Structure formats: C-alpha cells, structure tokens
C-alpha cells in the first residue's frame, strides 16, 4: 500500500518539476555550436578532463585510457570521431562516462549543457545526406523549444569495428 502511494507521489512530483519517467530524457552536450544528446540512462557520470594514457597503434579518435576508480576506461574524442577540427581543452571540457552493453567508456566533449525532456512526437528520424555525411550513428533529431538536438545511438557509435576485438580479424588475416 505504502509503496504504491509513494510511487504516485513520486510521479506527481516528477510532473511538477517537469520530469518524465518514460526514458525520453537526454543529457545534452556541445561540440562547437552543435548540440548532441545521449539517453540519460546510459550516462554513468560526468567528470572533468584529466590526462589519459595513449594506447599504441589505435585509431586517433581513441584518446587513450583512464583510471576510473580502479577500472580501465577507454576515452573517445567525439570531435575526432566525427572528423571535426580539434580544439584546445578548456575548463569546460568534460568526459561523459557512459555504459554501453556493460562496457564503460568515456566521451570527451566541449561542454555539457542540460538535461532535456524530449517527447516522442518531437523526435524525427535521422536525416539522409547520402555518402557525403555519415550520420549512421544518429538515432534521430530532437526538437526542444528552438534547439535542435542530434540524438546519438550509443551502440552504433561505440561498438563499431575498431572497438571490437580487432585482434581476431588480424589473426585470421
């Protein structure tokens, strides 16, 4: 009984402060002028940028690895991943630590922005640019007020071939 009451109360509270519980919340961050969003349930934490150890013989967008309280976490620079020009790190540069299929990874972004509620009806499918611009890692385009948020598909973004076990392919070759 009490549990049910508590649940209703939480729901009401959430509605009052503008939160919904249906998972359509996104943590948004900036890369230059552009705004990107990741499903908030995928985000483990946000931490300031600290120096990483570079992994030899890996693609350049893999910045290196970081010691996150005893676990080794690979750090990916999104600007390089998206072939955007790199900029110097500032006090706003952060690492968003996400969990993708039990793997913990960090994304270096220019700055974190807001947590936004985006209704399903405000999300449109990813645009098609053909071969010119690769947007396969987008889940869709969200609209919040007059802002455009590119919603990232974490699975596709982070579990592409170079993150997979490359050694197997190498051995077979």
């Amino acid at each position, binding site marked *: 009984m009490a549990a049910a009451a508590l649940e209703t109360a939480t729901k009401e509270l959430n509605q009052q402060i503008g939160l919904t519980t249906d998972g359509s919340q996104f943590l948004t961050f900036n890369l230059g002028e552009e705004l990107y969003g990741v499903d908030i349930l995928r985000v483990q934490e946000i931490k300031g940028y600290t*120096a*990483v*150890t*570079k*992994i*030899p*013989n*890996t*693609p*350049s967008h893999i910045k*290196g*690895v*970081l*010691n996150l309280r*005893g*676990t*080794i*976490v*690979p750090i990916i620079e999104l600007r390089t991943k998206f072939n955007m020009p790199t900029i110097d790190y500032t006090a706003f540069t952060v690492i968003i630590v996400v969990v993708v299929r039990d*793997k*913990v*990874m960090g994304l270096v972004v220019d700055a974190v922005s807001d947590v936004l509620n985006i209704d399903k009806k405000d999300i449109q499918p990813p645009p098609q640019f053909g071969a010119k611009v690769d947007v396969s890692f987008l889940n869709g385009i969200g609209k919040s007020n007059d802002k455009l948020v590119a919603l990232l598909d974490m699975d596709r973004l982070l579990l592409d071939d*170079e*993150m*997979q*076990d*490359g*050694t197997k*392919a*190498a051995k077979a*070759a």
Partner: protein
Amino acid sequence: MSNEFAQFQEAFFEEAGEHLAVVEEGLLALEQHPQDLDLLNKVFRSAHSIKGTAGMFGFNAVAQFTHKMETLLDLLRNGQKALSPPIADLLLKSTDCLKALIEAAKTGEGIDDETVQRLTAELATASDLKVEKKAKVEGSHSRSSATSPSTSTFHIAWTPPEWMFQRGLDPLQIMKELGGLGTLDKVMLDTSRLPHLTEIDPEKCYLSWKMQLATGKDRKVIESVFEFVREDSSLTIEEATVSSFKSQVSSAASQHETRNQEHETGDQGPKPLGAILVESGMVSPAALDQALAQQKRVGEILVEQKVVTPQQLEQALHTQRQQEAAAQTKKTDTTSIRVDTAKIDKLINLVGELVITQSMLSDLGSRFEIKQLPVLLERVAQLERNTREIQERVMGIRMLPIGTAFSRFPRLVRDLSSKAGKKIQLVLSGEETELDKTVIESIGDPLTHLVRNSADHGLEPPEERLDNNKPEGVTIRLNAFHEGGNICITVEDDGRGLNRDKIVAKAVKQGLIGENDKLSDDQIWPLIFRPGFSTAEKVTDVSGRGVGMDVVKRNIEALGGTVSIKTVTGKGTTFTLKLPLTLAIIEGMTVRVGKETYIVPLLSILESIQPKEGTIKTVVGRGELINVRGTYLPMIRMYDVFVLEPEYTNPMKAILLILETEGERVAVMVDEILGQQQVVIKSMEQNFRKVEGIAGATILGDGTVGFILDVRGLLEIARHGTPVAA
C-alpha cells in the same frame, strides 16, 4: 530441510570429495606398494569418515555402500586378504560408484541402481572369507534399502492451540521430538490463519503444519509426542504407504511438486503409473500424453470441491514457488575454498599492523614539521611493506597448487593403459606451481582430453615401438611452470607424433584445405583443433570422434590462453597450454619511452645492457642485430613498434632489455629503466578490447594508467606490422 542443514550438507559433500580423492590416490599408490600398511590405513580412515558422515546426514545408500568397501578394506588391513589386481580394480570401481552415489545425493538425481547392486554383490564376494563374514555382509545388504520394510510413513496435520506460546510450549520442540522418532522428510507450514498485522496477538499461535514422518514406531508413540498440546489441537495422523503419501502431498500443490517429491525421496520410489502402463505395452505414449493433458491441476480440483479456499491454494503455490527457487539456488554450484586458519590468522595480524601504521601516519600528519621528514619516509616504507605483504597473502588464498588438477591423471592413465594394452608411465612435474582456483577448475577437462588423446592416438602399440628401437613402455609427461606472467602446462608423449599426410588427406576430404595447397607444418597442425576432425581409423570409446581437440582449444581460449603443438614424426608430440594468471599481480620493471611508462614482466627479462659502439650491426640495411657476448640478437626499438616519440634514437644512449619469450631472445630498446614494482593486472578487454603488444594495464603510482608489455605480441608486431594502422 532447513537452510542450516543444507549448509552442513554442502560441507559434507566437499569433505566427501576430499576423502574420495584420498581413497583413490591411496588405492593407486597401493597397487605399486601393496605392503604399505600406512597407506592402507589412510584409505581405510577416509572411507570410514565418508561412511560416518554420510550416515549422519541420512545418505543411507552412500553409508551402506561405503560400509561394504570398508569391510573389504578391513580384510586387507588385517592381512586376511591380499591386494590382488582384481581387488584393486574392484575397489577403484567402487570408488567411482561411491562418487556417483554422492553426486546423486547432492543433485537429488537418480542413480544407476544396477551398477550399485552389481558392485555390492562383487564386494560381498570379495569379502567372502568365512561364512559368518558373508552373513554379516549380507545382513548389512538387506538393510541397505533406505527404509526397512517395518518403516511406515505417517502424514501428520497439526493445528496447535492458540494458547500454545502462552503456556511456554514451543512447536519446534515437538518437531524435534518427531524428528527423533524417525525421519521428518517434509514439513509444510500453513500460515493461512495468520490475521492482518494490525490484528495480530503476538502471544497467540496462528500457525499449523503438515508433516511427513517416516518411522518404525507406531501411531501411539507419535500421539504421545503431542500429549501436552493435545487439548484444543486439531491433529490428524494418517498412516500412508510411500506412494499414497505422494498423492496426498501432491494434493497440496500441483503436479510439479510430485516430481520434486520423487527426487527427494530418492531412487527407491516406484515409477509413475503412466510409465508402468506404457512400459507394459498397455497404453501408447501418445495416449498417455493425451490422458495427462486432460488432467486438471490438483489445486483446481480441490478448489472446485471446496476442500481448500483459493487463498489456501495460493499460499501452497507460493510455498512451492519458494521451494523451487530454493532448489534453483542450490543447484548453482557454490564454490568455496578451504583456507588454512594459520593463513587467516596471519592475515588478521597484518591488518592489525596496517591499522597501526595508518594511525601512526595520521598522527604524524596532524602535526607535521619538515624536520620529521625522515620519520615520515620511514613510516611510508613500513606502510608499503605492510600492503605488499597483505596483497601477497590475499592472493595466496586464491592460489592453489596445480597438483590438484593433476591428481586425477594417475588413475586415468592407469585405466587407459589397461584398456589399450599399452604400458604407459605418467610423469608429473611442477605440481607445486600455483595458479588461481578458477583456472585450475577449468583446465581439468582440456587436460583430460589431451592426455586421453596422447594415450590413444599418440602412442603406438608395444610391437611397433620395439620395431622402432623405442622402449616398450611409453611415457606421458605433464609439466607446469611459470613463464613471463603466464602458466605453461605441457602434455608431452614419446609416441609416433602427428602424421602430416593423414591430417592433410583428411583436411582435403573435409574441404578444409585444397589438394594442392602448400602449407607449412605450423599451418597443418592446428587443423586437428577443428570441430569434427579426427584421423583415428576407428572410433573407440576413448577418442576418435573428433570432439575433444576443438573443446580443448575452446576451453583454453575462453580462459584467455593459447594451445600450441610441437611434434616430431616418430619421436613424439608436445602440447603446450599457455594460460594467464587471472587476478594476478606480477613483478614488473617499469621502463620509460619518451613520456610513456611501460611495465615489462620481470620474468621475461634476462638482463639489461647499455650497448657499446660497434656492437650493433645491420643486415639488409634494416634488420638490426646486437652482439651480446658473442651471440647476435635481433633488436627491436620500442618507439618504432608503438609509434612513440623517444628521448633517444641512438642505441648507445638508450638501454637495451634482453627479453625471452617462448625460448626466443630479443633486445628491446627503451629510454630508461625507472624501477622494479609489483603491479596489479587490470583487464583491457573489460571495457575495450585486446591490444596487440599489450598484455594488460595497471594503475601507476600517480594514478595514471600504465601498460604491461606483452613481449610475444611486441615481437609479432615488429615482424609482421600492426593489425590496426595508427
């Protein structure tokens, strides 16, 4: 069965396993030295322990069987019988059977009754020294059925009076008394009368029970247990045969329960009616299935007949679900390690020391002056010593000598040897090599496959060996040793070696390779790890089905290890399993290349040198070789391989580490050696993937990540280039 009891059972199974191992080992050793009375006594003691504890836990079948083994062992001990090969055989077979019995008791599954009966009879015959002995054995045999004919099962339903607690009586006491009369197989608690929490009177008893009691005593005795609570109790005691009881119990829940029930009462339970009908040919299986499909759930019927209320039924189903869940958790193998108490005592002492050091440090920190620096350094050094020692001891708890995995092989080889008619000698070495418990548990099967394979395929019959000027007896060697942060286990035989032509022919036949493919030996040998690949002309029960080698490879790779083969036709084959030390801490040398720090496993470092002018030569302009006391070793510049910016590109200024991997030696050039340090291996694969040339990562003193060098991988990159271009 209460949880506590289950917990003790767990301990029993563990202990029984250990005793069984002692019995088996002892018997094998006894075969070689039949006169060794100490050994015999040891075997006897272990068998006796199994019997005693099994009896205590009510595993009668186990106890009875062990008793018969014991009888025979006793005769041997008294010198009334000699340990002849047939008797040794029989005892070993009995040990296997005992193992199966204990396993059956553990899982609650049925056992191979026939084997038990046969071996029981054989044991009895073997012990048949005098007529009276035989009588004694047979006497015990007749008792071997779990419940003697005079035992009957009572179904007791008891609702105690509400004033029970007020008068200082305890239902548990009654249960205990009932338990004393016989075996209280099943106790079901009915909480349906329990009022809402707000209305509950804590001094009143709202509970009732249904119990199943197997006892030799009669109804009057049972009734007398309830004497003090008889007044106001509702008590029914019904005598039931085992089968009719089952139907009654099943009436409390659905049919699923009945099946569980059969497991619990063990193998002696009669077959379901349907099975008997089908077996006797009166009913076809299809007809039976159809009939069963029409059956309503017992619970539904009972509700329809208004025997139980839906609430009570719900309650019963709830209980059933709980039991199912409990059974499930029980099945998942609980693993435990037996640790010497001395080890734990030492650990506790160390933790004590650590706490003291910590308080000394914080005391110093709270009023620190710079002139106390030496004191601080000294205490930090103490802290380091403490942590290192604790680290070692904690790791030591998980580490077991590999001998535990090897111990099964003497028996295996003995059996294989007699079956195949080959004289096989097994030589074990490196048993004391310690590795992680989980690894030890998982290499048992792959090793068994390899040993079987060697015995069956690898070794030629005695005549063929004599023809080839080899000693008649063959040798299989099992060896374990550490190499560069890995454990290597080799299985070596001096048999005929792999037959290249046969493997190629078979591979061509299976379409794995083309007929005219030119393949090197190193490409051919791994073909035997393909699923379904076997070159044995006939399939024996030992091997030849082509499963096995692929399982070996899969299991070892699952552990993060590798399997390699070396073979010389006519001389023998060596399989080398290379396994990582999981959870391991390795001793490493920290080296610097440019700004990066790498850890080189100390075990692979032979020496470090500063090259002199003129010791480095090149071949074909690029391949660099260094002269180390007369031997030219290939030189690898680490910054080249890992694409780093080094401080020195001139070898005369840098340091060369002479490393060894799989018997090969190379010189690796680094900028500087920073020091020696123990490092905890952290997995790179957990969140990333395997990186060529890197065995793992670790956290350095300043909190950043350092990589542990994989010498083999480094060599591969240097030779073949990198798989992922930077």
